[in-house]
């Protein structure tokens, strides 16, 4: 049939299109964490995203200026709450750098051991949650099971499942338990077995692969421009890992590899985390081999470290020292330092300023996941709405760290 209005130009028949605006969040089921996105859509593809964060802003930096140096630890737990130990260690190292002290070797191994287990838990959670958001619920449950094994060990060592506040200025709250080594090996084996199984479930699944590969690609140059670090940077092919580039604690004695990807897409980010998980377990095993069985855990610095409880209750010096440390806080020398460690999401930096009193003058945390999140509009441009879910999952935005 011939159209009636055949003398109308084809271009005029086109409906005028204008981008549609869609609000996503701040409470959206497929987004772990709370974040709001204003999307500009052309059909189903995303043209522009305005990411609005800050829905979990809890005033971390302000709260640090209220208490003593030691009272910051509980707050650091809740920064990246998937791997609290790594935050504890990062902050402890920053204060120790300012004080110019180094913790005894046994404690360094202990920090690496628990820290790597914590990193494994972080990557398990991130990958599990990402799989769950794509509808793969079974692998998620398996990874939760693996994480439960890690948390059991952490609970035995630190007394808390999640918010440990365990590593302190100049050492740790408690020495390692006698059976930490045996338990760590057990946990490593259990976690590895579960991971190998869930790998088989996911990584041969056509749907899962299709939704990850080639989505959210970022080039290495762009990643550096955005200041990405951690697994996200490594997925673009740049092997920058603080543990290798600027070894701290005893990482220079550990034999491990830095896995890199080459496309910088969701699949690479997923796989880099997955490979790092095995490397973490490898480091844990080496720690078990090398860690000395006895020796001090805390530095011998009574002006910074709480005395043992027997002394507090038994001697007058111990009581006074304890009182002064608790009420006035450890006196940290005047100055400012920037100290950085490799956390679950990348370079976790603490920039701390002290004016010589027991209270921090300024504690600034460099949150690695904000940098990755900042690249999100670039990653998603031109992709479909449905791709937001896996891409956002691979960013691994952790509210507590991102919004502080």
């Amino acid at each position, binding site marked *: 049939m011939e159209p009636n209005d055949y003398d109308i130009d084809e271009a005029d028949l086109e409906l005028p299109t204008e981008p549609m605006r869609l609000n996503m969040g701040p409470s959206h089921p497929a987004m772990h964490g709370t974040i709001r996105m204003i999307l500009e859509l052309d059909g189903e593809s995303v043209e522009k995203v305005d990411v609005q964060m800050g829905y979990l802003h809890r005033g971390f930096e*302000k709260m640090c200026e209220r208490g003593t140096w030691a009272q910051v630890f509980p707050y650091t737990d809740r920064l990246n709450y998937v791997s609290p130990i790594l935050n504890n260690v990062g902050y402890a190292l920053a204060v120790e750098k*300012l004080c110019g002290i180094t913790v005894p070797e046994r404690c360094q191994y202990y920090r690496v051991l628990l820290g790597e287990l914590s990193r494994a838990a972080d990557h398990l959670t991130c990958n599990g949650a990402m799989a769950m958001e794509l509808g793969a619920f079974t692998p998620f449950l398996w990874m939760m099971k693996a994480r439960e094994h890690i948390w059991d060990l952490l609970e035995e060592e630190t007394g808390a499942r999640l918010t440990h506040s365990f590593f302190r200025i100049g050492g740790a709250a408690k020495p390692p338990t006698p059976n930490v080594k045996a338990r760590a090996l057990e946990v490593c084996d259990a976690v590895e077995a579960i991971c190998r199984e869930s790998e088989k479930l996911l990584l041969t699944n056509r749907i899962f692969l299709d939704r990850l590969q080639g989505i959210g690609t970022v080039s290495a140059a762009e990643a550096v421009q955005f200041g990405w670090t951690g697994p996200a940077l490594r997925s673009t092919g740049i092997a920058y890992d603080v543990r290798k*580039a600027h070894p701290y604690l005893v990482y220079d004695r550990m034999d491990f590899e830095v896995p890199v990807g080459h496309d910088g897409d969701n699949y690479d980010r997923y796989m880099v985390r997955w490979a790092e998980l095995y490397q973490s377990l490898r480091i844990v095993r080496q720690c078990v081999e090398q860690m000395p069985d006895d020796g001090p855990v805390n530095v011998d610095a009574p002006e910074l470290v709480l005395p043992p409880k027997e002394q507090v209750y038994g001697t007058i010096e111990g009581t006074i020292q304890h009182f002064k440390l608790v009420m006035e806080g450890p006196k940290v020398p005047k100055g*400012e330092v*920037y100290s950085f460690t490799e956390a679950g999401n990348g370079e976790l930096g603490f920039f701390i300023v002290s004016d010589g009193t027991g*209270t921090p003058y300024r504690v600034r945390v460099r949150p690695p996941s904000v940098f990755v999140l900042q690249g999100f509009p670039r990653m998603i441009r031109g992709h479909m709405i449905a791709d937001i879910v896996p891409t956002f999952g691979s960013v691994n935005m952790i509210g507590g760290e991102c919004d502080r």
Partner: protein
Amino acid sequence: MSAVVVERVKAQFGSKVVETTSFRGDESIVVEPAAYYQVAKFLRDDPACDMSMFIDITAVDYPSRDARFELVLNLYSLHKAHRVRLKTRLFEAEQGEVADATRPTTVPTVSTLWAGANWFEREVWDMFGLKFEGHPDLRRLLLYEEFEGHPLRKDYSADKTQPLMPYRSGPDVLGKQRPFLGDEGMPFGRKDWAPRDASWSDDSLGDPEDAPPPDGTAPV
């Protein structure tokens, strides 16, 4: 290693460099606000510096100083593995004050040099109220637009809330109870920059014996 960078900057900018310090292996350079952008650009482009990676930008508030804010830019070179801290000192912008070249209150944005700086300059604006000239989108990052003031300034009382939602009241809503006051958990060593929120003073709680039923209203 990083000292090379400091030497390069000193040689290039001479009198614009206010001071350089090296403390516990951290190198930092303080420059005049007028030269801040040029130095940042030099650090990025000079092959000996090659600061390809933006690490962090933040500020520190020193209310007792004349130039109140210290802007701190941390940079890293991915290839040369050195780090440097670039700092500059800014004055507080008074309302309605005419721009005074001897009291600089703003610096140009560095988000044109490193894309990563964009959000962090927004955060500095949000938390400290420092503006960046030429920033593409200087909105609040973490707080909401209705928020008044800049919370990380030392004179902002930590417990002064500005709720977006009016609080409920009723018998099931409790206010703060004794002995928890506004300065709860604060040690002796705390600096008293800001008076604590007046509505939570000791008196407003009254005597615990004849305390009025908590009405649940919170300080605004």
